[in-house]
């Protein structure tokens, strides 16, 4: 069986000349939870965009065995769901229900099926009673949950999340971890929060300056204090305790 995500020799430059990704090689098996860590400006968000085909650079990206190109784009987006850095960007419809229904409707589901999907996704993130609320009436934590629900409702095989714990307090962060741990899909999570990465991930990919520096076992990479410090990161609580 093909890998969930496969990236070969991928490079990307922003229009203003910033080289954001250079020669990325990455393969992620199905069902894995991968944490993408790295300092600010490492290229994490850019790599997530590349996976869903939002930027086109040099090199090859395949999702679930399908090469990402203009022809396959629709099919690719059906298999990978990506959740952006800022939930306000993700929730653009007048009500939460419409917002979550947007994806399933575009998948061509029937109204009843859509209603089912939406109800289920909302229940998963604990926002079942909020369906008719306007997104701008939600709290930051609720927005974050809703943004994740928009992706869950499409039940893609692969989910990418960009800084899912931004501006959350410890309690909300714990809820998020519980939610992520309960998902059965392939997950790619970009974050600068080492503790989140350490708790959720099965595997860690460390990026800096647009390159993959290390890739592999969570414990091994994240407890390497020299490597982490070199790239502006720190050893998470979980591993610093055990050391």
């Amino acid at each position, binding site marked *: 069986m093909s890998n969930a995500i496969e990236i070969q020799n991928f490079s990307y430059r922003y229009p203003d000349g910033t080289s954001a990704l250079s020669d990325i090689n990455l393969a992620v098996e199905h069902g894995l939870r991968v944490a993408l860590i790295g300092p600010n400006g490492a290229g994490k968000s850019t790599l997530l965009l590349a996976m869903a085909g939002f930027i086109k650079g040099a090199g090859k990206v395949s999702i679930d065995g399908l090469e990402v190109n203009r022809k396959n784009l629709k099919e690719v987006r*059906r298999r990978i769901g*990506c959740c952006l850095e*800022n939930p306000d960007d993700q929730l*653009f419809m*007048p009500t939460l229900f419409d917002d979550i229904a*947007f994806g399933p*409707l575009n998948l061509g589901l029937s109204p009843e099926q859509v209603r089912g999907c939406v109800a289920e996704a909302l229940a998963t993130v604990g926002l079942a009673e909020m369906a008719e609320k306007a997104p701008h009436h939600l709290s930051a934590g609720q927005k974050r949950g809703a943004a994740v629900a*928009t992706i869950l409702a*499409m039940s893609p095989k692969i989910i990418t999340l960009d800084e899912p714990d931004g501006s959350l307090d410890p309690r909300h962060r714990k809820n998020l971890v519980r939610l992520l741990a309960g998902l059965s899909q392939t997950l790619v999570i970009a974050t600068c929060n080492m503790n989140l990465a350490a708790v959720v991930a099965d595997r860690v990919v460390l990026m800096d300056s647009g390159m993959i520096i290390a890739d592999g076992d969570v414990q091994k990479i994240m407890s390497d204090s020299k490597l982490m410090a070199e790239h502006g990161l720190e050893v998470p609580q979980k591993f610093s305790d055990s050391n």
Partner: protein
Amino acid sequence: MHHAYIDKFAYQDSPVHRLDSRVKFLVVLVFTAVVISLPRTSVSILFCFAVGPFAILVLGKVPLRFAFKHILLVSPFILVLALTFPFYDRTPVTVAFGPLVWDTTLGWMRCFTILGKFVVTVLALIALVSTTRFSDLLAGLQRLGVPSLLVIQLGFLYRYIFVLIDSAHHILRARAARAIGKPGFNTELKVAGGMLGSLFVRSLDTAEHINVAMHARGFDGNWRTINKLQIRSADYLFALVAAAFIFGLYFFVRPVLQ
């Protein structure tokens, strides 16, 4: 922002809230048209018409203080215009109201009629907006034939007005925190341009991100929505009562009050 929460009562639940948005919209439209075409000097009939929006507001659990505060907010322009009437139209008239009889001018009568009509029609609009979720109103408008492009725009607008207004407020705060002296007009303008510009650049970024978010969810240029509207017997009943109220007042009560 003073009116950022005008629609907060739209999320309550009441028999009025449950009515179909199309029916409510059309009723308010007809109501407004009829009120506007009332004679230009009869104030008392307006009180009768005011009963309609009043009933909707009360049934919809919208605090009246909120409605009137809002009317005050939007009134300056019409107030200025209405106050010109007494200056230009000094025809003397004698007005009788119950036991009271007094002399005034036609200008004052028309001034009060205009203000009265203004209050009644705005009250009706507030009654509509604060008992109807904006999303439902949009869906209703779309079904009434408003082009979908416009409906999409209205949806985005409604969603992001508050986000960007918040940003604007925050930027203004940042300026206030550091604008201590008295900068010249040039600086003022340059700073205002910069603030608007940075707000603009940020809006562009947001738009780009939303575009990504939409395409990430399978958007292909065709806007699809689920129809949640449905006209029920309560809606027919409401339309009937409203029509009876409006036209009853217009055709039977107004001639008597004349």
